[in-house]
């Protein structure tokens, strides 16, 4: 007996996300949005059910294989940016590519291109502590997309930002989506969710609605 109570957060979710889609997941606190995203992004492990990405049952992969899959196929943008404080903006972006064994010069060049893509080329040598919240989130996005992930996951990426900066960040996501990037984003902001092409609304662990833009 561990003494812990098992809570069923997600109930009977059956979800299919197409390549190139921009999906927003919304819902009140405790609806299970983040849990769903953690499961889909392999940061957590389902106690029941299956998750497939590109026909691979990723939910069955052992821990080290999941890490490798995250490295090669998934990108993350966290609510609190989650940059390594001792690495510069450029070093934060280049890190996953070095882990992929990309040639060092090529990795740095690609990291710089991605920083340029999010408008932060001039801040490449700055440490996170020398950047504003919006700039840190852009670095986080640059890091998430630098290795060309199949899916980009974003967990409330604008939660810590003011409205203007949030809109700028959302624009970056929309630009990425236009370029063909699959994006799954959890957000509290209905306004921002409606900017995506598909909105999943969760409540009490169930999909309440699944709306696609026409």
């Amino acid at each position, binding site marked *: 007996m561990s003494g812990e109570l098992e809570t069923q957060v997600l109930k009977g979710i059956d979800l299919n996300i197409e390549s190139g889609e921009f999906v927003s997941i919304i819902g009140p606190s405790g609806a299970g949005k983040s849990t769903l995203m*953690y499961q889909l992004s392999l*940061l*957590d492990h389902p106690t029941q059910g299956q998750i497939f990405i590109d026909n691979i049952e990723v939910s069955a992969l052992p821990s*080290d294989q999941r*890490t*490798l899959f*995250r*490295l*090669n196929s*998934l*990108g*993350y943008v*966290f609510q609190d940016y*989650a940059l*390594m*404080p*001792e*690495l510069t903006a450029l*070093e934060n972006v280049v*890190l*996953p590519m*070095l*882990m992929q*064994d990309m040639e060092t010069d090529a990795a740095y060049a690609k990291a710089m291109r991605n920083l340029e893509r999010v408008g932060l080329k001039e801040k490449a040598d700055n*440490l996170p502590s020398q950047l504003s919240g919006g700039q840190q989130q852009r670095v986080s996005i640059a*890091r*998430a997309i630098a290795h060309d992930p199949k899916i980009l996951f974003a967990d409330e990426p604008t939660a810590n930002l003011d409205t203007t900066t949030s809109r700028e960040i959302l624009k970056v996501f929309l630009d990425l989506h236009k370029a063909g990037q699959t994006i799954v984003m959890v957000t509290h902001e209905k306004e921002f969710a409606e900017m995506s092409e598909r909105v999943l609304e969760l409540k009490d662990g169930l999909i309440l609605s699944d709306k696609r833009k026409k």
Partner: protein
Amino acid sequence: MKKYLISLQVGFFLAFRQIKRASIGTTVLIIFIMTLTFLNLVVVNGILVGLLTGSYEQFRDRYSGDILITPQERIANIEKSQTLVSLAKSLGGVEAVSARTVVSGKIRADLGQNPSGKESPNENGGSVVGIDPEDEEKVTGLSDLVLEGKALEPGDEGYILVGASLIKEYSNFADANFPGFTILRGVKVGDKVRLTINGSQNGSAVQISKELIVKGIIKSKVDQVSQRSFVLDSELRKLTQNIDLNVQEIAIKTSVPDTGEILFALKSQTDLSKVRVQTYKEAIPSFLRDIESTFGVLGNVIGGIALVVASITIFIVIFINAVTRRKYIGILKGIGISARAIETAYIFQAIFYGLTGSILGFGLVFLFLKPYFDQNPLDFPFSDGILAASVSGSLARAGVLMLITLLAGFIPARIIVKKNTLDSILGR
């Protein structure tokens, strides 16, 4: 193989930047602790062993020479002493030879006084050594040991050098006060003393006395020397009626580091059942060798404790570092950085602290402490303590320190890296 190399590369990438951008104060403090640990490992052991090494060197330089020839137990003297002395002097690599006549005797200082029966006589017993002052000077530099007065010179008949341990005012045992213990009191240079030794007259044993003037008082850290008195060998032979010129000690000083050939030549010309031919190390009293092994064990125990302290320090440093960075470790795992690369980063940090501390410690020992102690030995009652530290021994200790540091860095990193990725990211 490739994934190991990538982990190494990424681990180094992370470690380098973590160290580079860490608090300078913290980094300096950790390196300081590692340096102290290295010093604790090398210096404490080195001083303990150095005390004995210094004692051995004193024994050789002030008493035995590089080779000491003595009679076997129960044999009165070295047979054919003069032949052996001549042989030794003829051997290549032999710098000087001192033949010593050693007898037991008693020195009495209260001449002309009549102590009441209640007062103990002002006398002391010990070995009396007959020397050729010039030969002895070449082997042991006896004049360097003169504390007061002057050394014996050829022709100094009627004079005696008295060992400091025999005189209350100079002895380390001055305050000893137990029944039967006698020691000379108030003897100064120029005083007249009476030497009484066992000799023979017309074939029968008799006690022979002679009054001598104290020419000097000698003090050495080698007890064998400080407890002796020295007179001219010619005078002592006259007193003992020793006409065969056989002596009790032959000390040989060599100019070569390896005395093997000299030793072989001497042994081959000697009846080893009656005479002992020993290197100075063999001649060292066994209690000193026992102390050496005890000090060695003590040094290793203290060194072992230092290692445990160092490993706990590194463990705590890395553990606290890893715990406070648990969220970032979770994020690293989340973005696909392998557990091995993250652990490697912490191992590299531990290696950096251990290596830098060891290099600094190494420099301190061999560029500063060792030369300093060689020039200014520690003044211990029985030796001039030096710092006995060899490069190979210190490298071995640095290696052990690195190994312990490596483990102490790896284990806490492993504990934190093994935690659930999402729990680490969310801090739960």
